[in-house]
């Protein structure tokens, strides 16, 4: 069974944004890591994850209708 989520890909990750980012279809039960793979984003390009504005990580599961926000690593040291 599939569900629809919203995607917000920040900064350089915009280049991976699918046309259907406002109603993006994913399989039920998948986590952010699976989503990232499905989008074709290399895992090392995902640095910060929010789900509905709450801090999450690659292992977090995604609820129906959630807004998933991903940031790339752009700071450094």
């Amino acid at each position, binding site marked *: 069974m599939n569900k629809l989520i919203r995607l*917000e890909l*920040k*900064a*350089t990750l915009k*280049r991976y944004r699918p046309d259907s980012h406002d109603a993006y279809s994913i399989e039920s039960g998948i986590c952010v890591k699976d989503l990232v793979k499905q989008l074709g984003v*290399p895992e*090392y*390009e*995902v*640095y*910060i*994850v*929010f789900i509905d*504005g709450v*801090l*999450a*990580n*690659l292992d977090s599961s995604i609820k129906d209708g959630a807004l998933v*926000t991903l*940031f*790339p*690593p*752009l*700071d*450094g*040291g």
Partner: protein
Amino acid sequence: MPYGYNGKILHVNLNDSSYKIEEPSENFYRTYVGGGGLSAYYLLKGLKPGTDPLGEDNILVVALSVITGAPLSGFSRYTLAAKSPLTGGFAETEAGGYFGPELKFSGFDAIVIKGKAPAPVYLWIKNGHLEIRDAAAVWGLENGDALDRIREEVGEPKARVASIGPAGERQVLFSNVMNECSHANGRTGMGAVLGSKNLKAVACRGDSKNIEFADPDTVKELVSWHNNRIKTHQPNINYSKYGTPMFVMGLNAAGILPTRNFNAGVFKGAEKIGIPGYEKILKRAGTCYRCAAACKRVVDVPNVNPRYGGPEYECLGAFGSLCGIDDIYSISKANEMCNRYGLDVISTGAVVAFAMECFEENVLTESDNDGRKVLFGDAEGMLDLVEKINARQGLGDTLALGVKRAAKIIGNGAERFAFTIKGQEIPLHDPRGKTGVGLSYALSPTGADHMETPHDTAFIGDGVNFIKPLGLLDPTEPVRLNEAKVRFFKQGQFCWSMNNLLGICNFVAAPLLALKLEKIVEAVRAITGWETNLWELIRAAERSEVMMRVFNNREGFSPKDDRLIRRFHEPLPDGPSKGNYINENDLKNAIHLYYDMMGWDSEGKPTRGKLIDLNLDWLPEAQSHE
């Protein structure tokens, strides 16, 4: 006996091998706390303006904080400070690793070193006792060999050692101090200061039981809380899994990966030196004392000794994109050579990139370098120049003075390609894509420094949640340089300055990483037993910044030194950030707004009111002139 620290500061005079132990009050420690604060106090008290940084009168401070050595992840950092031979201003440089905690266990919170030994020596400190030992058999050795030899001589295989390599002995102006072969007090030329004092190393050994905590149960709980969060907080997961090399691909995709001496922000070879390339050489992660974050890298590269570690982001950028080199094997070799010889990877890469552009533009020719031009992309030529810088041979002897001085000596228009701020070479971050870093470069007391304030880029959109506890309620706009950016810069600077003062690694702590502000405060309370809070700690952070500024003002620095380089005011030529530049007027306005926010006058001098507000009444600058 205080909790968390020794209450003892060791003063050593190398001229006559004398020493004394100072036992300052709790109020002294609460005022100056650690690293930059303690160092600035001793430099402002003891150093006359105009002192030769490489003369015997310079003062070298090795400083821990009151919490250094507690078993929380990232609490291992220590500071080296002096007047910088590279900038002529305040020098401070932090390193993680294992030396800081060991020095704490050996009985001292700081060492203040004056004078110059008549012949090479090293300090050996064990459980509160100092011995100044003959370094005849150690002088001339590379860092790894020096570490082995000193451990053998003192009969302590677990002694921790911070040493200079041959580059520091030869006073290369950007030489560094290394501990355990892969942890560097990299910047501002502290290796040359040790070299000028005939001081090869400081070695120490102590028992961690020498230090007690006020509330050991809470310390234990905090360790567990922090280490668990490091495992689930995505940015920290990335630091552990990929280390800082992850930034290569990110910054390249943004079009702000410094390339060919800051000529461009996109590097064709980024994949080869970023994570896809790095995965081919990665052996395992490395770490610092009791740190669960494990962001260090160990690599498996032929002809590279793994004990010197693998290249981190700054090194990949400096010898990679900045030099137009996409060969990760050669970059790994350059990293190993810098750590063996004791050279700062940022300044060394930058001075090579400067020379490359001079060759490209025929400002330097074959005849300046034994018949060889070294153009962008020439990995073999780059390694040869690193070798010559360490040996101070040929062109290397000129480059060993740093970009600014080398450009003057080379002449012939070389200054057009010479990029430094306050005399220090520029780290591998292009402020045209994150203007807060531009303010860091312009305003840091140590010259171009990328660790002065958190980088703007993590705090866009929902990222604002990380900085709300600093009173910053709006998301950042990385490429804008406006009033809001100055506010962000200042609050971020106070936060990182507090981390630096406490010797907490910025890769495990607020605002972005795992240890939240309130947990930092809880840790200081549980370790020291002080009834303290964020207010007091942030005030201490501001105090340390202000003291460094006062030091630089005494040395003749003025608002004209708070600047960026020509290239950052020109548009990026291509890539995703094409056309971005920093407007000179915007920068000037931002800097003067910062002075206003800080309570400094239009000449960038902290006012008498600000100094007295910060308990700095004792400074001559705080005296009334009426």
